[in-house]
Protein backbone atom coordinates (compact mmCIF):
# COMPACT_ATOMS: atom_id res chain seq x y z
CA UNK A 1 0.00 0.00 0.00
CA UNK A 2 2.92 2.28 0.71
CA UNK A 3 3.90 2.11 -2.98
CA UNK A 4 0.39 2.91 -4.11
CA UNK A 5 0.25 5.91 -1.84
CA UNK A 6 3.48 7.27 -3.15
CA UNK A 7 1.97 7.14 -6.63
CA UNK A 8 -0.90 9.42 -5.68
CA UNK A 9 1.22 12.45 -6.24
CA UNK A 10 1.93 11.62 -9.87
CA UNK A 11 0.01 13.87 -12.19
CA UNK A 12 -2.81 12.45 -14.26
CA UNK A 13 -2.97 9.12 -12.48
CA UNK A 14 -6.09 8.12 -10.68
CA UNK A 15 -5.70 5.46 -8.09
CA UNK A 16 -8.68 3.96 -6.37
CA UNK A 17 -7.65 2.83 -2.97
CA UNK A 18 -9.68 -0.12 -1.73
CA UNK A 19 -8.05 0.06 1.64
CA UNK A 20 -9.84 1.78 4.43
CA UNK A 21 -7.89 3.37 7.20
CA UNK A 22 -8.84 3.42 10.82
CA UNK A 23 -8.11 7.13 10.83
CA UNK A 24 -7.03 9.83 8.40
CA UNK A 25 -5.29 12.88 9.79
CA UNK A 26 -5.03 16.04 7.72
CA UNK A 27 -1.92 18.06 8.52
CA UNK A 28 1.47 16.96 9.83
CA UNK A 29 1.95 19.67 12.42
CA UNK A 30 2.23 19.12 16.15
CA UNK A 31 -1.42 18.13 16.63
CA UNK A 32 -1.51 15.86 13.58
CA UNK A 33 1.76 14.05 14.21
CA UNK A 34 1.00 13.61 17.92
CA UNK A 35 -2.37 12.09 17.05
CA UNK A 36 -0.69 9.85 14.47
CA UNK A 37 1.96 8.75 16.96
CA UNK A 38 -0.64 7.93 19.62
CA UNK A 39 -2.88 6.01 17.20
CA UNK A 40 -0.03 4.09 15.61
CA UNK A 41 1.27 3.09 19.05
CA UNK A 42 -2.16 1.61 19.75
CA UNK A 43 -1.82 -0.49 16.60
CA UNK A 44 -4.23 1.47 14.44
CA UNK A 45 -3.86 2.02 10.70
CA UNK A 46 -3.39 5.71 10.31
CA UNK A 47 -2.74 7.89 7.28
CA UNK A 48 -1.45 11.47 7.57
CA UNK A 49 -1.97 13.73 4.56
CA UNK A 50 0.36 16.72 4.40
CA UNK A 51 0.35 19.36 1.66
CA UNK A 52 3.99 20.33 2.19
CA UNK A 53 6.75 18.33 0.56
CA UNK A 54 7.67 17.03 3.98
CA UNK A 55 6.24 17.36 7.48
CA UNK A 56 7.19 20.84 8.69
CA UNK A 57 7.59 22.46 5.27
CA UNK A 58 4.51 24.67 5.75
CA UNK A 59 4.72 25.15 9.49
CA UNK A 60 5.53 28.37 11.35
CA UNK A 61 5.17 29.50 14.94
CA UNK A 62 6.43 32.31 17.12
CA UNK A 63 8.98 30.06 18.60
CA UNK A 64 8.39 28.68 22.10
CA UNK A 65 7.18 25.20 23.00
CA UNK A 66 6.16 24.42 26.58
CA UNK A 67 7.49 20.90 26.95
CA UNK A 68 5.07 19.37 29.49
CA UNK A 69 2.55 17.99 26.96
CA UNK A 70 5.09 16.15 24.83
CA UNK A 71 7.00 15.06 27.94
CA UNK A 72 4.00 12.84 28.81
CA UNK A 73 4.19 11.08 25.46
CA UNK A 74 7.95 11.05 24.83
CA UNK A 75 9.66 11.46 28.22
CA UNK A 76 13.00 13.21 27.94
CA UNK A 77 12.26 14.21 24.33
CA UNK A 78 14.41 17.33 24.53
CA UNK A 79 17.54 15.18 24.82
CA UNK A 80 16.97 13.94 21.30
CA UNK A 81 14.62 16.36 19.54
CA UNK A 82 15.94 19.28 17.48
CA UNK A 83 15.09 21.91 20.07
CA UNK A 84 17.01 25.17 19.91
CA UNK A 85 17.48 26.42 23.47
CA UNK A 86 15.96 25.84 26.89
CA UNK A 87 14.31 29.08 27.98
CA UNK A 88 15.75 30.19 31.32
CA UNK A 89 15.26 33.90 31.00
CA UNK A 90 11.95 35.73 30.54
CA UNK A 91 11.85 39.37 29.59
CA UNK A 92 8.92 41.68 29.02
CA UNK A 93 9.21 45.25 27.83
CA UNK A 94 7.00 48.26 27.40
CA UNK A 95 8.38 50.28 24.50
CA UNK A 96 7.67 53.93 23.86
CA UNK A 97 9.05 55.56 20.73
CA UNK A 98 12.47 56.23 22.21
CA UNK A 99 12.64 54.21 25.43
CA UNK A 100 12.01 50.80 26.88
CA UNK A 101 11.06 49.58 30.37
CA UNK A 102 12.01 45.94 30.85
CA UNK A 103 11.43 43.35 33.52
CA UNK A 104 13.58 40.25 33.54
CA UNK A 105 12.87 37.07 35.41
CA UNK A 106 15.37 34.22 35.46
CA UNK A 107 14.67 30.98 37.29
CA UNK A 108 16.64 27.77 37.89
CA UNK A 109 13.42 25.73 38.01
CA UNK A 110 12.82 26.50 34.33
CA UNK A 111 15.42 23.83 33.66
CA UNK A 112 13.33 20.89 34.94
CA UNK A 113 11.84 18.86 32.07
CA UNK A 114 8.29 19.02 33.48
CA UNK A 115 8.30 22.83 33.54
CA UNK A 116 10.83 23.59 30.82
CA UNK A 117 10.05 25.45 27.64
CA UNK A 118 12.16 25.46 24.50
CA UNK A 119 12.71 27.68 21.53
CA UNK A 120 12.00 25.62 18.43
CA UNK A 121 12.06 26.07 14.67
CA UNK A 122 9.06 24.20 13.40
CA UNK A 123 10.38 23.05 10.05
CA UNK A 124 13.01 21.06 11.89
CA UNK A 125 11.02 20.11 14.96
CA UNK A 126 7.87 18.93 13.15
CA UNK A 127 9.93 16.82 10.76
CA UNK A 128 11.41 15.04 13.75
CA UNK A 129 8.02 14.46 15.40
CA UNK A 130 6.57 13.09 12.15
CA UNK A 131 9.49 10.66 11.92
CA UNK A 132 8.67 9.48 15.44
CA UNK A 133 5.10 8.76 14.38
CA UNK A 134 6.31 7.06 11.21
CA UNK A 135 8.60 4.83 13.26
CA UNK A 136 5.52 3.66 15.20
CA UNK A 137 3.84 2.69 11.95
CA UNK A 138 1.88 5.78 10.93
CA UNK A 139 1.83 6.37 7.18
CA UNK A 140 2.58 9.84 5.84
CA UNK A 141 1.83 11.05 2.33
CA UNK A 142 3.38 14.42 1.65
CA UNK A 143 3.01 16.95 -1.14
CA UNK A 144 -0.71 16.09 -1.30
CA UNK A 145 -3.42 18.62 -0.55
CA UNK A 146 -6.67 17.32 0.97
CA UNK A 147 -9.21 19.23 -1.11
CA UNK A 148 -12.58 18.13 0.17
CA UNK A 149 -14.30 16.13 2.85
CA UNK A 150 -16.32 13.07 1.89
CA UNK A 151 -19.61 13.23 3.74
CA UNK A 152 -22.25 10.50 3.44
CA UNK A 153 -25.59 10.76 5.25
CA UNK A 154 -24.21 13.57 7.36
CA UNK A 155 -21.23 11.51 8.48
CA UNK A 156 -17.64 12.29 7.55
CA UNK A 157 -16.03 9.21 6.06
CA UNK A 158 -12.89 10.40 4.32
CA UNK A 159 -11.18 13.05 2.23
CA UNK A 160 -10.77 13.73 -1.44
CA UNK A 161 -7.35 14.63 -2.85
CA UNK A 162 -7.75 15.54 -6.51
CA UNK A 163 -9.41 12.52 -8.12
CA UNK A 164 -8.47 10.22 -5.30
CA UNK A 165 -10.88 9.37 -2.50
CA UNK A 166 -9.56 7.99 0.73
CA UNK A 167 -11.86 6.63 3.37
CA UNK A 168 -11.56 6.02 7.07
CA UNK A 169 -13.71 5.46 10.13
CA UNK A 170 -12.75 8.90 11.36
CA UNK A 171 -10.90 12.01 10.19
CA UNK A 172 -8.88 14.24 12.49
CA UNK A 173 -8.52 17.73 11.03
CA UNK A 174 -5.23 19.22 12.16
CA UNK A 175 -4.82 21.38 9.08
CA UNK A 176 -3.95 24.61 10.81
CA UNK A 177 -5.48 27.96 11.67
CA UNK A 178 -7.26 28.57 8.34
CA UNK A 179 -8.66 25.00 8.20
CA UNK A 180 -10.69 25.31 5.00
CA UNK A 181 -11.92 21.77 5.63
CA UNK A 182 -13.36 22.54 9.07
CA UNK A 183 -14.95 25.64 7.56
CA UNK A 184 -16.46 23.54 4.76
CA UNK A 185 -18.10 21.31 7.37
CA UNK A 186 -19.54 24.32 9.20
CA UNK A 187 -17.60 23.35 12.33
CA UNK A 188 -15.55 26.51 12.29
CA UNK A 189 -16.57 30.00 11.24
CA UNK A 190 -14.41 32.29 9.12
CA UNK A 191 -11.87 33.93 11.44
CA UNK A 192 -13.18 37.25 12.76
CA UNK A 193 -10.87 40.22 12.28
CA UNK A 194 -11.11 41.45 15.87
CA UNK A 195 -10.12 37.98 17.10
CA UNK A 196 -7.35 37.27 14.62
CA UNK A 197 -3.84 38.65 14.40
CA UNK A 198 -1.28 38.46 11.66
CA UNK A 199 2.20 37.41 12.70
CA UNK A 200 5.17 38.30 10.52
CA UNK A 201 8.45 36.74 11.44
CA UNK A 202 12.11 36.82 10.56
CA UNK A 203 14.61 34.17 11.48
CA UNK A 204 17.84 36.12 11.83
CA UNK A 205 21.12 34.30 11.77
CA UNK A 206 23.79 35.22 14.36
CA UNK A 207 26.85 33.45 15.65
CA UNK A 208 26.24 31.20 18.62
CA UNK A 209 28.72 33.12 20.78
CA UNK A 210 27.18 36.47 19.85
CA UNK A 211 23.76 35.22 20.98
CA UNK A 212 25.17 34.01 24.30
CA UNK A 213 27.03 37.24 24.98
CA UNK A 214 24.24 39.53 23.81
CA UNK A 215 21.53 37.91 25.92
CA UNK A 216 23.69 36.79 28.85
CA UNK A 217 23.17 33.06 28.30
CA UNK A 218 25.23 29.95 28.87
CA UNK A 219 25.59 27.31 26.17
CA UNK A 220 22.09 25.83 25.85
CA UNK A 221 20.09 28.50 27.68
CA UNK A 222 17.65 30.74 25.94
CA UNK A 223 15.69 33.93 26.35
CA UNK A 224 12.04 34.67 25.55
CA UNK A 225 11.16 38.33 25.20
CA UNK A 226 7.76 39.96 24.74
CA UNK A 227 7.53 43.64 23.82
CA UNK A 228 4.38 45.77 23.81
CA UNK A 229 3.76 49.39 22.88
CA UNK A 230 5.56 51.09 20.00
CA UNK A 231 5.74 48.00 17.71
CA UNK A 232 1.97 47.78 17.24
CA UNK A 233 1.56 51.56 16.70
CA UNK A 234 -1.55 51.92 18.88
CA UNK A 235 -3.13 48.63 17.84
CA UNK A 236 -3.42 45.45 19.86
CA UNK A 237 -0.26 43.45 19.38
CA UNK A 238 3.41 43.28 20.12
CA UNK A 239 6.72 41.76 19.30
CA UNK A 240 8.25 38.55 20.48
CA UNK A 241 11.81 37.39 20.32
CA UNK A 242 13.19 33.93 21.02
CA UNK A 243 16.84 32.96 20.94
CA UNK A 244 17.60 29.87 18.88
CA UNK A 245 20.97 28.08 18.71
CA UNK A 246 22.40 30.20 15.93
CA UNK A 247 19.53 32.51 15.11
CA UNK A 248 16.83 34.70 16.61
CA UNK A 249 13.12 34.34 15.94
CA UNK A 250 11.71 37.87 15.82
CA UNK A 251 8.02 38.39 15.13
CA UNK A 252 5.49 41.20 15.08
CA UNK A 253 1.91 40.23 15.87
CA UNK A 254 -0.89 42.66 15.06
CA UNK A 255 -4.67 42.27 15.35
CA UNK A 256 -6.07 42.38 11.83
CA UNK A 257 -9.00 44.69 12.61
CA UNK A 258 -6.44 47.43 13.28
CA UNK A 259 -4.84 47.22 9.84
CA UNK A 260 -5.60 50.34 7.84
CA UNK A 261 -5.80 52.59 10.90
CA UNK A 262 -2.05 53.02 10.82
CA UNK A 263 -0.46 54.88 7.93
CA UNK A 264 2.03 52.05 7.72
CA UNK A 265 1.62 48.58 6.30
CA UNK A 266 2.35 45.43 8.29
CA UNK A 267 5.79 44.95 6.69
CA UNK A 268 6.58 48.64 7.30
CA UNK A 269 5.54 48.38 10.95
CA UNK A 270 7.83 45.38 11.29
CA UNK A 271 10.81 47.29 9.86
CA UNK A 272 9.99 50.27 12.08
CA UNK A 273 9.94 48.04 15.18
CA UNK A 274 13.25 46.45 14.20
CA UNK A 275 14.81 49.91 14.22
CA UNK A 276 13.63 50.69 17.78
CA UNK A 277 16.59 51.51 20.08
CA UNK A 278 15.87 48.47 22.28
CA UNK A 279 15.46 46.07 19.35
CA UNK A 280 18.10 47.25 16.88
CA UNK A 281 21.17 46.29 18.98
CA UNK A 282 19.73 42.81 19.54
CA UNK A 283 19.69 42.02 15.83
CA UNK A 284 22.74 44.06 14.84
CA UNK A 285 25.00 42.17 12.45
CA UNK A 286 22.31 39.54 11.87
CA UNK A 287 21.64 37.96 8.52
CA UNK A 288 18.08 37.23 7.47
CA UNK A 289 17.56 33.50 6.92
CA UNK A 290 13.82 33.35 6.33
CA UNK A 291 10.75 35.58 6.21
CA UNK A 292 7.42 34.04 7.16
CA UNK A 293 3.85 34.87 8.12
CA UNK A 294 1.08 33.10 10.03
CA UNK A 295 -2.33 33.92 11.47
CA UNK A 296 -2.78 33.80 15.23
CA UNK A 297 -6.24 33.37 16.77
CA UNK A 298 -6.62 35.62 19.79
CA UNK A 299 -10.25 35.10 20.75
CA UNK A 300 -9.25 32.48 23.32
CA UNK A 301 -11.83 30.21 24.93
CA UNK A 302 -14.81 31.98 23.37
CA UNK A 303 -13.43 31.22 19.92
CA UNK A 304 -13.35 27.42 20.37
CA UNK A 305 -15.29 25.95 17.44
CA UNK A 306 -17.39 22.78 17.22
CA UNK A 307 -14.79 20.17 18.16
CA UNK A 308 -16.47 17.00 16.91
CA UNK A 309 -19.18 15.80 14.57
CA UNK A 310 -20.08 12.40 13.19
CA UNK A 311 -16.77 10.92 12.03
CA UNK A 312 -14.58 13.99 12.53
CA UNK A 313 -12.53 15.80 15.22
CA UNK A 314 -10.64 19.13 15.21
CA UNK A 315 -7.27 19.57 16.93
CA UNK A 316 -4.62 22.23 17.42
CA UNK A 317 -4.71 25.47 15.46
CA UNK A 318 -7.64 24.17 13.39
CA UNK A 319 -9.58 24.30 16.68
CA UNK A 320 -8.28 27.84 17.46
CA UNK A 321 -6.38 26.55 20.48
CA UNK A 322 -4.14 29.53 21.19
CA UNK A 323 -4.05 32.02 24.04
CA UNK A 324 -2.27 35.34 24.24
CA UNK A 325 -1.95 36.49 27.83
CA UNK A 326 0.50 39.34 27.23
CA UNK A 327 3.49 37.85 29.06
CA UNK A 328 3.36 34.71 26.98
CA UNK A 329 1.61 33.12 24.00
CA UNK A 330 0.68 29.44 24.03
CA UNK A 331 -0.56 27.15 21.34
CA UNK A 332 1.91 24.37 20.69
CA UNK A 333 1.34 22.55 24.00
CA UNK A 334 -2.41 22.76 23.33
CA UNK A 335 -1.87 21.31 19.87
CA UNK A 336 0.09 18.36 21.24
CA UNK A 337 -2.38 17.61 24.03
CA UNK A 338 -5.44 17.98 21.78
CA UNK A 339 -3.80 15.71 19.20
CA UNK A 340 -3.20 13.09 21.88
CA UNK A 341 -6.74 13.36 23.26
CA UNK A 342 -8.27 13.20 19.78
CA UNK A 343 -6.32 9.98 19.25
CA UNK A 344 -7.41 8.56 22.64
CA UNK A 345 -11.01 9.34 21.69
CA UNK A 346 -10.60 7.51 18.39
CA UNK A 347 -9.04 4.48 20.12
CA UNK A 348 -12.08 4.25 22.43
CA UNK A 349 -14.47 4.75 19.52
CA UNK A 350 -12.76 1.92 17.67
CA UNK A 351 -13.26 -0.38 20.65
CA UNK A 352 -16.97 0.45 20.59
CA UNK A 353 -17.11 0.33 16.81
CA UNK A 354 -18.99 3.61 16.89
CA UNK A 355 -17.70 6.90 15.47
CA UNK A 356 -20.85 8.93 15.92
CA UNK A 357 -20.83 12.40 17.43
CA UNK A 358 -22.17 11.02 20.69
CA UNK A 359 -19.16 8.71 21.09
CA UNK A 360 -16.72 11.35 19.89
CA UNK A 361 -18.13 13.83 22.44
CA UNK A 362 -15.74 12.16 24.90
CA UNK A 363 -13.08 14.32 23.20
CA UNK A 364 -14.69 17.52 24.48
CA UNK A 365 -15.01 16.07 27.98
CA UNK A 366 -11.35 15.06 27.99
CA UNK A 367 -10.32 18.51 26.77
CA UNK A 368 -12.48 20.13 29.44
CA UNK A 369 -10.69 18.11 32.09
CA UNK A 370 -7.25 18.71 30.60
CA UNK A 371 -5.09 21.81 30.85
CA UNK A 372 -6.14 22.75 27.31
CA UNK A 373 -9.67 23.98 27.89
CA UNK A 374 -9.11 24.48 31.63
CA UNK A 375 -6.34 27.03 30.97
CA UNK A 376 -8.14 28.53 28.00
CA UNK A 377 -11.24 29.04 30.13
CA UNK A 378 -9.16 30.39 33.00
CA UNK A 379 -7.75 33.04 30.66
CA UNK A 380 -11.04 33.60 28.83
CA UNK A 381 -11.04 37.28 29.74
CA UNK A 382 -7.56 37.95 28.35
CA UNK A 383 -8.87 39.18 24.96
CA UNK A 384 -10.99 41.75 26.82
CA UNK A 385 -7.98 42.91 28.82
CA UNK A 386 -6.10 43.55 25.57
CA UNK A 387 -8.87 45.90 24.48
CA UNK A 388 -7.54 48.45 26.99
CA UNK A 389 -5.57 50.48 24.47
CA UNK A 390 -3.63 52.22 27.26
CA UNK A 391 -1.49 49.09 27.63
CA UNK A 392 -0.15 49.59 24.11
CA UNK A 393 -0.21 53.37 23.90
CA UNK A 394 -0.09 55.41 27.10
CA UNK A 395 1.52 53.04 29.58
CA UNK A 396 4.82 52.66 27.76
CA UNK A 397 4.96 56.48 27.71
CA UNK A 398 4.07 56.68 31.39
CA UNK A 399 6.82 54.21 32.29
CA UNK A 400 9.27 56.28 30.29
CA UNK A 401 8.30 59.53 32.06
CA UNK A 402 8.68 57.98 35.51
CA UNK A 403 11.92 56.08 34.93
CA UNK A 404 13.43 58.82 32.82
CA UNK A 405 13.17 61.27 35.73
CA UNK A 406 14.48 58.69 38.21
CA UNK A 407 17.52 57.86 36.13
CA UNK A 408 18.31 61.25 34.63
CA UNK A 409 21.03 62.94 36.69
CA UNK A 410 22.04 66.24 35.11
CA UNK A 411 22.46 68.70 37.96
CA UNK A 412 18.88 69.94 37.77
CA UNK A 413 16.89 69.89 41.03
CA UNK A 414 15.61 66.42 42.02
CA UNK A 415 11.93 65.78 42.69
CA UNK A 416 10.27 63.15 44.90
CA UNK A 417 8.77 60.15 43.07
CA UNK A 418 5.14 61.09 43.66
CA UNK A 419 5.75 64.60 42.27
CA UNK A 420 6.46 63.22 38.82
CA UNK A 421 4.73 59.85 38.95
CA UNK A 422 1.33 61.36 39.69
CA UNK A 423 1.17 63.64 36.64
CA UNK A 424 2.53 60.83 34.46
CA UNK A 425 -0.21 58.52 35.67
CA UNK A 426 -2.85 61.21 35.20
CA UNK A 427 -1.75 61.71 31.61
CA UNK A 428 -2.02 57.97 30.99
CA UNK A 429 -5.67 57.88 32.05
CA UNK A 430 -5.53 58.24 35.82
CA UNK A 431 -5.53 56.01 38.86
CA UNK A 432 -9.05 54.68 38.30
CA UNK A 433 -8.29 53.56 34.78
CA UNK A 434 -5.15 51.84 36.05
CA UNK A 435 -7.19 50.17 38.80
CA UNK A 436 -9.77 49.05 36.24
CA UNK A 437 -7.07 47.51 34.06
CA UNK A 438 -5.48 45.97 37.14
CA UNK A 439 -8.78 44.34 38.11
CA UNK A 440 -9.34 43.09 34.56
CA UNK A 441 -5.79 41.79 34.48
CA UNK A 442 -6.40 39.95 37.72
CA UNK A 443 -9.36 38.17 36.15
CA UNK A 444 -7.60 37.50 32.88
CA UNK A 445 -3.98 36.52 33.45
Amino acid at each position, binding site marked *: MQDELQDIGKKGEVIVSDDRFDAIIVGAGLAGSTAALTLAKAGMEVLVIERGNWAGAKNVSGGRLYGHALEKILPGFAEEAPIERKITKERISLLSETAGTTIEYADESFRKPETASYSV*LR*SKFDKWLAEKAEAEGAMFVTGI*HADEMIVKDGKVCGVKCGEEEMEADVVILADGV*NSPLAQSLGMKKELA*QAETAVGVKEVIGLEEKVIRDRFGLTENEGCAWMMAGYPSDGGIGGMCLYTNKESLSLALVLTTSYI*GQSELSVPQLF*ERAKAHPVVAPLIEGGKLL*EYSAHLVTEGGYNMIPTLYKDGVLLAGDAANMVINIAYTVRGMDFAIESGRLAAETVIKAKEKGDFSASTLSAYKQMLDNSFVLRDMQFHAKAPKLMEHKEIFTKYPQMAQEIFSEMYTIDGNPRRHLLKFAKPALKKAGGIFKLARIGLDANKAI
Partner: protein
Amino acid sequence: MKKMSVDDKLGLNKFYPDEHNPHIEIDPDFTDEKEIMRVVKACPAELYKYENGKVIFNHEGCLECGTCRVVSGGKVVRVWHYPVGSMGIEYRQG
Protein backbone atom coordinates in the same frame (compact mmCIF):
# COMPACT_ATOMS: atom_id res chain seq x y z
CA MET B 1 20.79 45.07 10.70
CA LYS B 2 20.30 46.65 7.31
CA LYS B 3 16.80 47.58 6.22
CA MET B 4 15.56 45.19 3.54
CA SER B 5 12.73 45.42 1.03
CA VAL B 6 10.04 42.75 1.19
CA ASP B 7 11.11 41.62 -2.30
CA ASP B 8 14.63 41.00 -1.04
CA LYS B 9 13.27 39.14 1.99
CA LEU B 10 11.13 36.90 -0.23
CA GLY B 11 14.19 36.30 -2.38
CA LEU B 12 15.75 34.41 0.54
CA ASN B 13 12.76 32.08 0.89
CA LYS B 14 12.38 28.82 -0.97
CA PHE B 15 9.37 28.62 -3.27
CA TYR B 16 8.00 26.06 -5.71
CA PRO B 17 6.11 28.54 -7.89
CA ASP B 18 2.91 27.43 -9.62
CA GLU B 19 3.03 30.28 -12.12
CA HIS B 20 -0.09 29.60 -14.15
CA ASN B 21 -2.30 28.44 -11.34
CA PRO B 22 -3.16 31.27 -8.93
CA HIS B 23 -4.53 29.86 -5.67
CA ILE B 24 -6.08 33.20 -4.75
CA GLU B 25 -8.57 35.06 -6.93
CA ILE B 26 -9.40 38.71 -6.50
CA ASP B 27 -12.36 40.73 -7.67
CA PRO B 28 -10.80 42.97 -10.35
CA ASP B 29 -13.89 45.20 -10.45
CA PHE B 30 -13.81 46.02 -6.76
CA THR B 31 -12.93 49.70 -6.42
CA ASP B 32 -13.46 50.78 -2.80
CA GLU B 33 -10.05 52.36 -2.12
CA LYS B 34 -10.29 52.13 1.65
CA GLU B 35 -11.01 48.39 1.61
CA ILE B 36 -8.37 47.72 -1.02
CA MET B 37 -5.74 49.66 0.94
CA ARG B 38 -6.43 47.55 4.03
CA VAL B 39 -5.59 44.42 2.06
CA VAL B 40 -2.57 46.14 0.46
CA LYS B 41 -1.28 47.06 3.92
CA ALA B 42 -2.09 43.69 5.46
CA CYS B 43 -0.25 41.35 3.10
CA PRO B 44 3.11 40.48 4.68
CA ALA B 45 4.51 39.71 1.21
CA GLU B 46 3.24 42.97 -0.37
CA LEU B 47 1.54 41.05 -3.17
CA TYR B 48 -1.38 43.46 -3.47
CA LYS B 49 -1.00 46.84 -5.20
CA TYR B 50 -3.47 49.64 -5.68
CA GLU B 51 -2.92 51.24 -9.08
CA ASN B 52 -5.17 53.52 -11.13
CA GLY B 53 -8.18 52.88 -8.95
CA LYS B 54 -7.85 49.11 -9.16
CA VAL B 55 -6.41 46.26 -7.16
CA ILE B 56 -3.59 44.27 -8.71
CA PHE B 57 -2.45 40.97 -7.28
CA ASN B 58 0.32 38.49 -7.98
CA HIS B 59 0.17 35.16 -6.14
CA GLU B 60 3.87 34.35 -6.52
CA GLY B 61 5.68 34.95 -3.26
CA CYS B 62 2.60 34.16 -1.18
CA LEU B 63 3.44 33.08 2.38
CA GLU B 64 0.09 31.24 2.62
CA CYS B 65 -0.96 32.94 5.86
CA GLY B 66 -4.60 33.78 5.05
CA THR B 67 -4.43 37.39 6.26
CA CYS B 68 -5.78 38.87 2.99
CA ARG B 69 -8.83 36.64 3.15
CA VAL B 70 -9.57 37.53 6.77
CA VAL B 71 -8.99 41.27 6.27
CA SER B 72 -11.02 41.56 3.07
CA GLY B 73 -14.03 39.73 4.50
CA GLY B 74 -15.07 38.44 1.07
CA LYS B 75 -14.77 41.82 -0.68
CA VAL B 76 -11.39 42.05 -2.41
CA VAL B 77 -10.40 38.39 -2.20
CA ARG B 78 -13.03 36.27 -3.91
CA VAL B 79 -11.48 32.81 -3.69
CA TRP B 80 -8.77 31.71 -1.31
CA HIS B 81 -7.21 28.26 -1.42
CA TYR B 82 -3.88 26.83 -0.45
CA PRO B 83 -1.68 26.09 -3.47
CA VAL B 84 -1.99 22.54 -4.81
CA GLY B 85 0.05 19.95 -2.91
CA SER B 86 3.84 20.43 -2.91
CA MET B 87 3.67 23.91 -4.50
CA GLY B 88 4.24 27.31 -2.93
CA ILE B 89 6.40 28.26 0.02
CA GLU B 90 8.71 25.73 1.63
CA TYR B 91 9.83 26.82 5.06
CA ARG B 92 13.24 25.60 6.08
CA GLN B 93 13.25 27.32 9.47
CA GLY B 94 9.59 27.75 10.38
